[in-house]
C-alpha cells in the first residue's frame, strides 16, 4: 500500500499505524503522530487502520522559539 510519510511516498505492508511505525523504523521512538491531519494518540495507533494514500506525519521535539 502506498502512503505518504512526512511528505515522502512510501510503500508499506502494514495495515495499522502501529505496524507502519514499526515497519518504517520508529520502534521505541519518542514521537507523536497524525494521519490525514488528525492527531492519533499513542494509545490509538494500534486501532488506526491505514488506507491507500493516507498521509502520516511523525513528529518529535525540536528547537523552537
Amino acid at each position: 500500500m502506498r502512503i505518504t510519510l512526512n511528505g515522502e511516498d512510501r510503500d508499506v505492508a502494514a495495515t495499522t499505524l502501529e505496524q507502519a511505525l514499526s515497519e518504517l523504523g520508529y520502534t521505541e521512538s519518542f514521537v507523536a503522530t497524525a494521519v490525514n491531519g488528525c492527531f492519533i494518540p499513542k494509545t490509538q495507533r494500534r486501532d488506526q487502520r491505514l488506507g491507500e494514500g493516507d498521509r502520516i506525519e511523525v513528529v518529535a521535539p525540536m528547537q523552537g522559539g
Partner: protein
Amino acid sequence: MLVYDTQLTSRLLLGTSRYPSPAVLTEAVKASGTDVVTVSLRRESSSERSGQGFFSIIRSLGVRVLPNTAGCHSAKEAVTTAHMARELFGTTWIKLEVIGDRATLQPDVFGLVEAARILANEGFQVFPYTTEDLVVADKLLDAGCRVLMPWGAPIGSGQGLNNVPGLRAMRARFPSVPLIVDAGIGVPSHAARAMELGMDGVLINTAVSRAGDPSAMAGAFNYAVKAGRTAYLAEPMMPSDVAIPSTPEAGLAFLA
C-alpha cells in the same frame, strides 16, 4: 510571576532555536536564569532521530517546557499540533501561534482566537502569540486565555518595541493579566524597556542565540529583565517636555 497557577522565579522565557551548538544552548539557558524554554515539533526521521537527542538535552536542563505551534497557518493545524505536543511533552501549556503573513509572521488573530477557544475548552493552558490589539486581547481572554503574549516587533527582527503606546494601553486595560512580550526584542535594553512598561515578562530567542556570545548575552538579558522589573515597581518619574533643574535654584550665588 504567576502563570496559570504556576509560580515562575524568572520573568525571562528563552527560545531554544538557532544556537550554534547544543552546548552553547545549555550554557545560555543556565546564564539566563530562565525557568521556561520554548520548543517545537518537527518531522522526525526514523534513521536520524534528532528530536530524541534534542529533547534529552532539554530534559537535562531541569526547566519547564513551553511547546509552540510555530509555522501553523490555520487554527486546525495549530490545534492538531497542540494535541501532539501535549502527548509528547506531558504538559497542557501551549504557546499558540497561528501565522497570518509569511513576510512579517504577523499572527492571524482570527485563527488564533478560534484555536484558543478550542484548546482552552479542552483544558489547555494557552499562551497566545498576538498583537497589541485590545479587541483581540479581549476575545482571547473571553476564549479562556489567562496569559497574553503581545509581539514587540516581527519575530526574529530584533527591532525592539515597535508600539510602546499600544503595549502601555494593554497594560492599563488588563492590569491583572500576565503580559509577556514575545518576539522582536533585539538587545537587553529592549527587554528592560518592556519590563519598565509593566510587562510581566519577555520571551527571547534570536537576540540570544545569534549573539556573538549567546551565553554572555543571556546573562545580560537576565540582568536587564530584573532591572526593568525593579524600575517598574519603583514607579518611574513622568517625562516632561521642558527642563526642570535638578539642583535647587534657591540660594544661587549672584556672580554676574
